[in-house]
């Protein structure tokens, strides 16, 4: 089923929100880190993994999800959170370590939790798979048609948790979709140096579930593949494994010298930017107008500005609050 005009516009807005949010964070992150870069200084200390270039996977998938469906992300999870509808202000505030953040400043950029929107993520590679299985198991026990999506990078598909989870989900026919973002790199290690087969989707065979490879970093291709898998899961037909080719524009984290990466790789990737291509395609098909898309982009610009502003202005938590919330 093709996306409606409304959905297309929402996808475009989400895509821009992600792109602009990540670009804004890349700038804010450098505040207070010059002339000498110190990871522990500045407005936002700590590691920063950004998802610019990887918008299609998150947006194309989450277009099929509702409030009751679960998404579990990774260390690079801003795009998933935004596509799942996590409040941008609360998320930005968390990334700034502020009291008003999703986790009151306790979690931070790699540990975003929004139980209302059924979103979570983790800084441990491969941790999304089992947790998504659990959400799917709960949906099944509650006899709901909710689904769970585990996102992870191609590097994570070499963890034991990936294989254990696929078997468990297949065995129990869980309504879960495993989506691998193949951005070709796990920090400095190329996929060809870490993975014995070209496509992780091939690994589905071992567990008797469908495996789909999406060869283009493209919103509509992801939309189609994810739509089919999610419909299957909702109808009780069990899990699907999807691998999507995608592109990482920034370094693994900001400050990554990227000595391992061919110099012009990012430049050539950007020449085929997925957002521009998406917009061209849907305009050419007569589904939307340029003016409509520009309006979505403006909305995104405003939302990102407001979120960063909100995060900046919010207060830090009080030191003693560090001792709260170890237990419920």
């Amino acid at each position, binding site marked *: 089923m093709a996306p409606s005009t409304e959905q297309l516009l929402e996808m475009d807005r989400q895509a821009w929100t992600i792109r602009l949010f990540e670009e804004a964070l890349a700038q804010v992150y450098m505040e207070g880190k010059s002339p000498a870069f*110190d990871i522990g200084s500045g407005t936002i200390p700590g590691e920063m993994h950004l998802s610019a270039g990887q918008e299609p996977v998150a947006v194309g998938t989450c277009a099929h999800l509702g409030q009751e469906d679960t998404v579990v992300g990774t260390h690079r999870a801003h795009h998933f959170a935004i596509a799942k509808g996590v409040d941008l202000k609360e998320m930005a505030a968390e990334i700034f370590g502020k009291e008003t953040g999703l986790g009151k400043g306790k979690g931070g950029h790699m*540990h975003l939790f929004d139980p209302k929107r059924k979103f979570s993520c983790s800084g441990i590679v491969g941790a999304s798979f089992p947790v998504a299985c659990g959400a799917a198991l709960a949906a099944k026990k509650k006899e709901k048609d909710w689904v769970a999506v585990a996102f992870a990078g191609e590097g994570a598909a070499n963890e034991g948790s990936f294989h254990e989870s696929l078997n468990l989900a297949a065995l129990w026919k869980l309504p879960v979709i495993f989506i691998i973002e193949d951005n070709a790199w796990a920090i400095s290690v190329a996929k060809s140096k870490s993975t014995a087969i070209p496509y992780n989707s091939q690994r589905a065979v071992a567990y008797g579930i469908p495996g789909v490879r999406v060869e283009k970093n493209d919103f509509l291709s992801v939309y189609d593949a994810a739509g089919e898998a999610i419909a299957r899961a909702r109808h009780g037909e069990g899990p699907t494994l999807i691998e999507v080719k995608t592109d990482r524009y920034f370094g693994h984290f900001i400050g990554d010298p990227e000595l391992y990466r061919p110099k012009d790789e990012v430049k050539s990737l950007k020449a085929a930017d997925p957002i521009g291509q998406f917009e061209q395609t849907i305009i050419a098909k007569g589904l939307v107008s340029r003016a409509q898309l520009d309006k979505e982009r403006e909305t995104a610009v405003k939302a990102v500005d407001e979120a960063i502003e909100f995060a900046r202005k919010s207060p830090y938590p009080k030191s003693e609050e560090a001792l709260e919330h170890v237990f419920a």
Partner: protein
Amino acid sequence: MSNERELTMAKAIAEAISQEMERDQHVFVMGEDVGVYGGIFGATQGLLSKFGPERIMDTPISETAFIGAATGAAAEGMRPIVELMFVDFFGVCMDQIYNHLAKNTYMSGGNLHLPVVLTTAIGGGYGDAAQHSQCLYSVFAHTPGLKIVVPSTAYDAKGLMIEAIRDDNPVMYFFHKGLMGLGWMRYPERSVNVVPERSYTIPFGKADVKRPGTDITIVCLAMMVHCALDAAEKLSKEGIEAEVIDLRTLVPLDREAVIASIKKTHKLLVVDEDYLGFGLSGEIAAIAADEAFEYLDAPVKRLAVPNVPIPYSQPLEQFVIPSVEAIAEAARSLAR
């Protein structure tokens, strides 16, 4: 002068590994991003170009497989050095470490030797939050069968690394990120010191008195050594002379050094960047109670992370990790 050159801790570790790899063909390195990247914290920098991908092996993100493989290869006479990028990730491979690497020698009645060095990064204070900032050496010291090394300076790091590689037992070698002398993370200048080019070893189980003093003993390791030394400088201006003892290894532990210092100062403060509960600080306090009780003029004081995960936000993180000021304050209250 060439024998007076100073190195960062990362460079000292890489040099130690390099010298041992030249000396012994059985030594090789496995881990995530240890090749072109040179280790995320620089512990294997320059080794790939020197020894090639057959001996400096980038691995898939499959810690159970490659850390378990170190055990298997060591049983066959190899001497693997294997890197777990952050100690916090031990959860995905703990069975291979705890139930196999640590115990196989014992369960074989001593017939199996496992000369594995497992290197891993520890420490917080730079905003990396609950899953990337822990120390956790106490968890590993708790299980019998693992030697535990935690250096605080480049000189110690090199000697302890060579000792670790030559040891016929599993050695866990914890390097604090903030001590590696990285271009992108603040580090105490003191961690960079003179490192001889020649090969040398530092025996395990020998604590180092990093600063002699008469009024109070501060037992610590890794980053806390530097915080304690900074605190000691402040205290000295106030007329309190603190003795700072760097344990350097937890297993084996230099109990004698701790006791000897207590006999001298009669006061003990243990400072630890690991969790307070059930850990290093409790262990040292127990040794003091067991073996030096009559020499203590005051109850032992412990300063450590107060049994909460490391929070992300800066004011929270700074509150839970012992600071120079907190150490000085604890020492003051004890010395009074």
